[in-house]
């Protein structure tokens, strides 16, 4: 589930009972503004998408999956993220149908928060979700 060509080199530093930490190293292909070297907002969306789904998935039995219903991202600041990015996601509440997740992305070296996000995730019966 982790390997993803849109997020080259992504790895999970932590993924257990509802808390996930992913690390994404810097890559020139992630740039959205060539003048400043800032990472594209879509990179952060893709990274959060994965972290939010994983945060719920790792609280579910193996035969269950997830479908992301919505994702809201607030971009607090732009980042060049030369040392890479870390996304942290926590499942705040899990019901029989829905998982509610809070997530953020920080610069890996400074710990400065780049974005905050909230996602709702639907539990599905058919294994690993989309």
């Amino acid at each position, binding site marked *: 589930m982790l390997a993803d060509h849109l997020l080259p080199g992504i790895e999970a530093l932590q993924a257990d009972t509802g808390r996930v930490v992913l690390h994404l190293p810097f890559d020139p292909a992630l*740039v959205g*503004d060539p003048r400043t070297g800032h*990472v594209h907002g879509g990179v952060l969306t893709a990274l959060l998408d994965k972290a939010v789904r994983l945060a719920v998935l790792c609280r579910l039995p193996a035969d269950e999956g997830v*479908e*992301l219903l919505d994702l809201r991202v607030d971009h607090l600041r732009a980042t060049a993220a030369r040392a890479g990015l870390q996304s942290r996601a926590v499942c705040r509440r899990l019901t029989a149908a829905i998982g509610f997740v809070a997530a953020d992305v920080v610069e890996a070296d400074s710990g400065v928060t780049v974005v905050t996000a909230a996602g709702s995730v639907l539990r599905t019966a058919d294994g690993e979700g989309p």
Partner: protein
Amino acid sequence: MNEFRDEVLAARASGDCRRLVELIPYARMLGIDFHENAAGELVFRLAYQPENIGNPSLPALHGGAVGAFMEHAAIFELLWRLEASMLPRVVDFSIDYLRPGQPEDAFARCRVWRQGQRVANVAVETWQSGRETTIATARGHFLLSAPESATTS
């Protein structure tokens, strides 16, 4: 003002959308292009590539790819349409996933609901094989100009 702006203006003058995509490394990586249709709307395309599949067992298009695609579409729409003095900067972006994406091309169009001096509000709609099957919608705010006196904390 800057080279980037000149490149954007040259791309617009030539009507060649690919020149705009070429300026953004992450757009190249995703495999995005767009064209202006007969109605004068910009239609964006996320070209199908096997790497964009998030779940091989379904298989379904990766939600992150769809989200990143929609954010690109909004930015390109603003760049193509507006006299923006800078690359629009995303303030917030909210995505609703309506159904799983199929392993095929995805398309998007944008609607700029409001364009102020400094901020634009843009809605994005993404569909596949037939305009009636919307797979995701999104809305976001984008900064169009830098504040004159930047105070940050």
